């Protein structure tokens, strides 16, 4: 816990570390969501096509 | 071997008949270097900029001209016909690149005096530039013909050709442009050329093999 408190207190470095973590998670989250959306869309299209 | 010379003769004859290729190549080379010169701010120190300008313009002009060597053959079906006649894909690719090198790039060396005047180079610099161009252009030709093969079936989005193949020019550009940055130029210049020759011998089989695969895919 001490480590974490020291980390939050380190003003300058805190923003660097936090922003890099956020950016990586954002990138992974975005590719995950986009892949999911694309697959869902394709699934719908397949169902529509096989109905006809 | 006989096939090879037959094919080479054909390619050279086609190029000779179509002399506008060389004319447009040299015009493009000179005008685009002029554009670079106009974009420079500090003309007093112009000699510093000659390497990036010459190499970037050279690479782009080679890539643009390489398409001419394949597109006509592809569109009138003679690429398929040549394969059908029993010429191997490697021979076709090698002949095309050799013809391109002989017809376009060797004469292009004679454009260098113009660069000499533009950038106020010394005779020694031009000699080195000449040697570098002479040795590195075979690899450049092979790679750009490969990129032209990649994009030959694309009707739109021709810019793909540039995006996919530019990373492969990096080693050649590095070794051609940094030749004189060493403390002892006379000692290292030869090594530079040897490395470029080595790169050529790596590029040659890789490009021939990849070219064969792509040509087979094109004519399926």
């Amino acid at each position: 816990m001490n480590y974490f408190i020291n980390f939050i207190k380190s003003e300058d470095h805190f923003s660097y570390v936090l922003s890099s973590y956020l950016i990586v998670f954002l990138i992974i989250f975005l590719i995950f969501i986009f892949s999911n959306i694309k697959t869902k869309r394709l699934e719908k299209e397949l169902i529509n096509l096989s109905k006809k | 071997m006989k096939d090879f010379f037959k094919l080479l003769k054909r390619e050279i004859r086609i190029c000779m008949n179509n002399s506008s290729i060389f004319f447009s190549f040299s015009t493009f080379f000179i005008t685009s270097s002029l554009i670079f010169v106009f974009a420079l701010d500090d003309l007093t120190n112009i000699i510093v900029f000659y390497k990036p300008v010459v190499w970037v313009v050279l690479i782009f002009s080679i890539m643009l001209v390489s398409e001419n060597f394949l597109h006509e053959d592809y569109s009138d079906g003679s690429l398929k016909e040549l394969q059908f006649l029993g010429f191997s894909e490697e021979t076709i690719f090698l002949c095309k690149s050799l013809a391109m090198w002989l017809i376009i790039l060797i004469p292009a060396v004679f454009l260098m005096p113009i660069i000499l005047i533009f950038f106020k180079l010394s005779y020694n610099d031009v000699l080195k530039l000449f040697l570098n161009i002479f040795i590195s252009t075979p690899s450049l030709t092979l790679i750009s013909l490969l990129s032209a093969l990649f994009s030959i079936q694309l009707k739109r989005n021709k810019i793909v050709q540039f995006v996919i193949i530019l990373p492969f020019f990096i080693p050649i550009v590095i070794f051609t442009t940094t030749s004189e940055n060493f403390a002892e130029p006379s000692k290292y210049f030869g090594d530079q050329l040897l490395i470029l020759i080595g790169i050529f011998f790596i590029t040659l089989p890789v490009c021939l093999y990849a070219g064969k695969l792509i040509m087979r895919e094109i004519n399926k």
Partner: protein
Amino acid sequence: MIFKLANPLKFQKFTEKFQPVTIHLALFLLVIGLFFSFFNSPPDYLQGETVRIMYIHVPCAWFSLMIYSIIVICSISSLVLRHTLADLISRSCAPIGACFTIATLVTGSIWGKPTWGTWWVWDARLTSVLILFIIYLGLIIINNSYDDKSKADKYASILAVVGAVNLPIIKWSVNWWSTLHQPASISKLSSPSIDPSMLVPLFIMTFSFFFFFISILLIRLKGEIIQRKIDVIKYNRVEK
């Protein structure tokens, strides 16, 4: 096992079962990894708190290389064995690899600002990762710019193999080029050894990222298989 899964239909069933497991595992490991990296690892005595960037930067860099090697292996097997699934895997790997590479570049430059004092240096490592990113972009573009999917796959696999031959040359030449331009004073990354308290979060994060990668890959693969099915259905309708 592998040959069984090489059938796209069986693979799709396997995907549906396996995908939720991987995403849960990834999230679980991520929570543990975050706990270890923020609460249970000491700051570096040289770099201070910024060393915590390492726990996401290094896994991203590993995966950017690993995914490229997966693409190359799949490309070779698709060129030699002509298997469809290999094409599908390399096609769906390319965007994920590009994402990991851009994450590596961004976190690296954020890490570089406090440690080196600048966002970007023309160091050999950084430059070669940038070139890797450009090659990924080329693969993605070539995958999407042909109307005929099988042709695009063939071209992309040729490009990936040529790139694999050329990458060591590029890496070597860039290395040579950057040592020419500047003295090697910045490679702080090659510190002699690493403390176990830092190794634990690093490995947990790596495994977490691995499961994220697998899960995204499975989703994309499912999408690609469905896309092929749609293409076949449409083609058959046109034929009729």
